């Protein structure tokens, strides 16, 4: 097990710049998730770490040893591919044993290691099968098993759950979390699904356009997003982002009605354009006064309800209520915005902290 350091990593494909200087340190035993929209460079970053892509500039170090020039086979990492990349002509056993054979381990140790990993992943009954005779979830587990038997310095996962159906994805997610607790290895996991990121990660790295937007624990990102992108990306349903202007110190106006909301405005001058962010669950219903909202849609999930509505001059607002809401379509309600739970972003999208 090992730590990883990236310093000033840049990657270009011809004239296309994909990574713009990534600095990152991953501690030994940490579960780090790279998350971001499609094309943000997260997979490229993972492949750079794996050694499948050369860096254009910068350095990659594992356990303090510079591995920038080393090919993938000599870095001692294991990777689980999105497509699983199981060798179709080999049995499950052979798939898992292939790397060990390449490492030149004795036969009985290979057998022992493969069987231990198979038992851990409930694959013992399928060892003689070919990958095409397995279900999606089983293939996924073989791919993970292939990584485990290696006992690698770092596990790399490239969107490993995206080919599974929703139910299996949740189950496998839990298994992965359990696996990390059991093995304790350093894991780097790429996904575009922020729920996977939130549930699995010790730390999340949010990437956009080849740059790191924010690094932090899941709740840190949720509670204190550094910028508009992270605020909008982390959390489901999305944070409500309302354009507004600073009225005076401590107050922001939003919407056509010029509704005034108390909010720490930092050093911003009155008249500055800002974006006010508030999570659906932090919005509360107020009696008779507050931000007016005409309900467009009510979703009742049993344990909770989501209200979607519009307020003049503002984008759609989502509100989460506990229990089974009795509100109806076209009804107008008033919202209270608790100032302690508000996020304020300046014109450049950076968070304003009190």
């Amino acid at each position, binding site marked *: 097990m090992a730590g990883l350091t990236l310093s000033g990593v840049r990657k270009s494909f011809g004239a296309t710049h994909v990574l713009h200087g990534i600095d990152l340190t991953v501690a030994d035993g940490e579960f780090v998730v790279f998350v971001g929209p499609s094309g943000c460079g997260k997979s490229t970053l993972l492949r750079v770490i*794996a*050694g*499948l892509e050369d860096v254009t500039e910068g350095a990659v170090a594992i356990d303090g040893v510079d591995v920038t020039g080393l*090919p*993938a*086979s*000599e870095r001692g*990492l*294991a*990777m689980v*591919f*999105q*497509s699983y*990349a*199981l*060798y*179709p*002509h080999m049995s499950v056993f052979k798939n898992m044993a*292939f*790397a060990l054979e*390449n*490492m030149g381990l004795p036969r009985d140790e290979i057998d022992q290691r493969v069987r231990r990993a198979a038992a851990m992943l409930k694959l013992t009954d399928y060892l003689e099968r070919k990958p095409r005779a397995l279900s999606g979830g089983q293939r996924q587990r073989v791919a993970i098993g*292939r990584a485990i038997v*290696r006992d690698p310095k770092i596990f790399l996962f490239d969107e490993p759950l995206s080919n599974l159906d929703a139910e299996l994805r949740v189950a496998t997610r839990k298994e992965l979390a359990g696996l990390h607790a059991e093995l304790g290895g350093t894991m780097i996991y790429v996904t575009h699904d922020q729920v996977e990121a939130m549930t699995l990660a010790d730390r999340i790295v949010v990437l956009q356009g080849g740059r790191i937007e924010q690094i932090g624990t899941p709740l840190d990102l949720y509670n204190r997003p550094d910028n508009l992108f992270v605020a909008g990306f982390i959390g489901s349903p999305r944070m409500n982002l309302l354009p507004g202007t600073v009225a005076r110190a401590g107050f922001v106006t939003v919407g056509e009605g010029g509704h005034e909301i108390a909010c720490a405005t930092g050093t911003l001058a009155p008249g500055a354009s800002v974006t006010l962010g508030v999570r659906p669950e932090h919005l509360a219903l107020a009696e008779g006064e507050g931000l007016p909202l005409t309900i467009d849609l009510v979703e009742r999930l049993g344990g909770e309800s989501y209200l979607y509505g519009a307020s003049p001059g503002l984008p759609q607002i989502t509100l989460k209520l506990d229990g089974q809401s009795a509100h109806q379509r076209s009804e107008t309600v008033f919202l209270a915005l608790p100032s302690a739970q508000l996020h304020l972003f300046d014109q450049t999208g950076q968070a304003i902290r009190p």
Partner: protein
Amino acid sequence: MSLVTKLATARRKPGRWHWTDVAAYAYLALGVVLMFGPVLWLAMSSFKTQAGLLEFPPSLLPMSQQEVVVAGHAQPLPLFEVTMPDGSTRVLAQVRRIGIQAQMVDPANPAEVIRVAIDKRTPVREFKLATENYTEPLERFAFTRFLWNSVFVTVVATIITLIINSMAAYALSIYEFRGKNTVMLMVIGTLMIPITIILVPVYLVVTELGLVNSLWAVILPGAATPTGVFLLRQYMLTLPRDLIEAARMDKASEWQIYWRIVMPLAMPALAVLAIFSVMWRWNEFLWPLAVLTKTESYTLQIGLNAFQGELQTQWHYLLAMTVVTLLPVALVFVFLQRFITTGIANTGMK
């Protein structure tokens, strides 16, 4: 009803003959006759005696005249059915023919010679396979040697072709390097050069290497085929890159990736190339004719050519040995047909 009969009697509407049914079956029958007819004729004729081959009108089945040993005659005599002047018919053996008269004897009574006009007799014929057409060349003309040479050339050349071509295809499909497309274009470009143009220069090279009259002179120059490289490269391009990268992550060396991952997965394309290579090598004629001049190094095709003399052609041997030559390729087709069709469909080659 078995599948075959069901297929062979399929009609547009069950129980009725539509005109398209008639047209389809007529067309198919024509195809069978056109394609299978010559082969059938070849196989039948290869069992005819030399005399039977020259017979007019020709017969499809190998028939030959019955002969009988008659006391007082060293050679067996041919049997004829003779219409006697009184209208009865007898079976007689012909001793000799003089002009339009034939001297004949009754095998049961060899002492009495009967004179018969030749238009009064018809040969007694029987179905007989002239297997000596096969056994004699195999014994007398070292045809087993030719057969062995052909098998050796075909097998060894195919193995070398598969290995060399797959390595080139691996490099041209898996690796990224400057000039990759140029190299590929040059490989494809050599397809445009017919063998007749490079015959002389290649012959000079082979002579310099001292390979003339060695089977290696036939095997080596054609081992790297542009068609094979192209076919395998196109197939390898369709293999998922993830597999190669997974193997790299699994600490596999380039050789192991090639041998243990790419080769097994490229099996369908390799099978197609193997089949083509076997056919090319087995049927190759011009190049072996140029470099093989000693009888003991002849391949089958060159050996067949030897039956065709300037003045006369030994058709009975030629036909029989042609059948021998065709058999292996036919067997390859029969057993590997599945690979050929699926493989050609997979590789997009026609």
